[in-house]
């Protein structure tokens, strides 16, 4: 492979690793904020629409009621703003300024919340999440 082509591909891959990340962080942030805003006004249906299928399904199985009824009874942050959002490939996390962290997955329908209201436990250990997949 010619040296110039190899260098170009290398630089392109480096750029792509960060390219477009800001837009996707904004999208993930918007979904997380919409989710918590829906919880604040008691709109279970809108909150469930922001959940991933697996998470909504697991919630219904555990609570033994429809998602829109189960979700408003959980101890999750209501309202709030995202202070920090990071995107890596098809995974994202959004930390709320008021406390609590959401994890999101990107699918064909955009970002969906896969775990919400999570709190850190020990260093290098998974967060403890009242709602997760």
């Amino acid at each position, binding site marked *: 492979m010619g040296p110039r082509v190899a260098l170009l591909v290398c630089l392109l891959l480096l750029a792509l690793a960060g390219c477009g990340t800001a837009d996707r962080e904004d999208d993930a942030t918007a979904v997380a904020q919409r989710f918590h805003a829906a919880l604040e006004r008691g709109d279970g249906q809108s909150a469930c629409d922001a959940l991933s299928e697996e998470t909504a399904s697991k919630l219904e199985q555990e609570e033994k009621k429809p998602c829109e009824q189960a979700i408003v009874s959980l101890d999750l942050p209501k309202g709030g703003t995202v202070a920090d959002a990071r995107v890596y490939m*098809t995974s994202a996390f959004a930390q709320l300024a008021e406390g609590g962290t959401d994890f999101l997955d990107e699918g064909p329908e955009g970002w969906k919340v896969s775990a919400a209201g999570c709190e850190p436990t020990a260093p290098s250990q998974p967060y403890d999440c009242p709602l997760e997949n």
Partner: protein
Amino acid sequence: MRRFLRDNSMSIVFLALFLAALGGQAIAGHADFNDTAASHGDPTISLGRYVLSSDFGAAVMENWQSEYLQFTLFILLTVWLLQRGSPESKELDKAGLESDQAQQVGPYAQQNSPRWAKVGGIRRTIYENSLLIVMTTFWLGTWLAQSVTGAAQYNAEQLDHQQDPVSWSHYLTTGNFWSNTLQNWQSEFLAVGSMAILAVYLRQRGSPESKPVGAPHSATGVEG
């Protein structure tokens, strides 16, 4: 055209093999990525999305960096290191940078020598080391690219497991980065070492990588 193809057949064939293998890696890697995503209950992605992902980028870069490291070290160390009987080695009395006359530089340059081989000063120094400079640049560039794409891939898995992402500098201290780096390095060094020693005793008629079939095992630095 026929002459061009014949005279450049080596680079043309290897470029074609490279492109075919890279395409195959993209297809296989995409299938593997989606298998893993499905087993985790995560969304799958398209092939186009996959080839732009850090997963594919890291897989490509970790292999490229080790290849360029292999050539960097091979080019550099064979200036001084010898292997009796190997066509990969210089003759036993020629270790080192050799004389200007042997290297055909400066006043010993020929009419059709490269321009910077005829001059002196910094230009000749750069040209004398140009192969090493470029290979080292590619090695470091692809290793950097491996670390950036690898960190993104690592952090995607962190988030998938509801764990905190790590910084790029922290990623450089992880077992994931060094395992991916060293698993490639060991195979490159093994390949060079194997070739150096096997070519002492084994032959491949017609290949410049082999000694002539009838050359003695002790003949060093000769090619068939």
